């Protein structure tokens, strides 16, 4: 699982790193861990883990196994296993998750939908949520 560090050890050997001085446009599909520190527009999908840094700006629908997000994302998130939103995360769009942790300061503007590992949505749904108090943890 992820730690609370900004970038866990496993991202050291990431398959792809999009640095802060890089802009990517289009459908980005990877099989390994991906680190995004720069800008990305389009779609982003990986079979493995995704890390989005605090300076990153992503306008894309995202699909990944696990994800740590500290930057800004505009689009739908579909995280099959574990999603961690850091204190600087800003999500404009719906979130589909199986497990989630949200740190104080994270901003979410959209629906948060629990999807079990079998892929079926549950009745847990929240909308237009902004967390600004204690660290919250759901599921």
């Amino acid at each position, binding site marked *: 699982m992820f730690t609370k560090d900004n970038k866990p050890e496993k991202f050291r050997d*990431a*398959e*792809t*790193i*999009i*640095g*802060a*001085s*890089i*802009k*990517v*446009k*289009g*459908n*980005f*599909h990877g099989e390994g861990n991906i680190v995004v*520190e*720069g800008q990305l527009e*389009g779609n982003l999908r990986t079979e493995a883990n995704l890390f989005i840094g605090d300076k990153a700006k992503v306008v894309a629908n995202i699909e990944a196994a696990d994800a740590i997000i500290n930057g800004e994302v505009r689009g739908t998130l579909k995280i099959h296993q574990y999603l961690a939103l850091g204190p600087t995360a800003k999500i404009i769009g719906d979130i589909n998750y199986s497990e989630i942790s949200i740190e104080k300061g994270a901003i979410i503007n959209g629906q948060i939908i629990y999807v079990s590992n079998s892929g079926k949505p549950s009745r847990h749904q929240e909308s237009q949520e902004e967390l600004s108090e204690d660290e919250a943890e759901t599921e």
Partner: protein
Amino acid sequence: MNIYIYDDYLNKNKYSRVLNRVEIRLTDLGLNGKIIRLGAIKNIRDVIQNEIKSGAKTIIAVGNNQTVNKIIGAVIDNELYGFFQKNILFSIIPIGDDNSIADSLGIKKEEEACNILLARRVKKIDIGIVNNYYFLNKATIESQGSIIDINGEYIIEPQEKGTISVFNLKSSANDDKNIKVNPIDGKLDVYIKNKGKDLSFLSVSKLKISNEHHPLILDDIIEIKTPADINIIAGKLNVVVGKDRSFE
């Protein structure tokens, strides 16, 4: 049979002593062969391919990175003689400066190169290709103004000055320690480094680079105008390597 290709610059007096040492060592090891001097030849490709057709088994570049680049195409670019080339080995005896390719193959010094040649430790490595030009080490271009197209699926636009390096084989003498390159994985490793510490990385099998103001440079030698399609040919070259090579 061994074919030794001597580069032009080895005609200078300052290299005569080291060449003598190499030739004596090769004789001692029973690795004599035919010597071809690049200076006297206009079409090296035809000469090398005729030697291959005549039964040459090992082509050895005696010189530096530029020597390798001059002859690598002739060693592998061949449909007509493909049958003869299946088992051709390529090796390097590095002499003088600018020998990072030999270094990354684990060949550090000229006399050590003779022993490595005798040991015949062979790896089948990938080769990068841009238009009709081959590269062993890397293709580089200025970041600013460059657009990288990956399979028509997405494009990458560096926003700052820096360098885009497309690696096939890491040149351990000159390249960043953080860079990991595997020349036997059938992939090109793309590193984008700005003037600061920012480093981007991805691994692809082909890409297209365009830049209106800057050329693409292959192995620090050949300049190519863009747009340029960069591909990789997996396992194309049999190279003789040393133990201290930069890959497994």
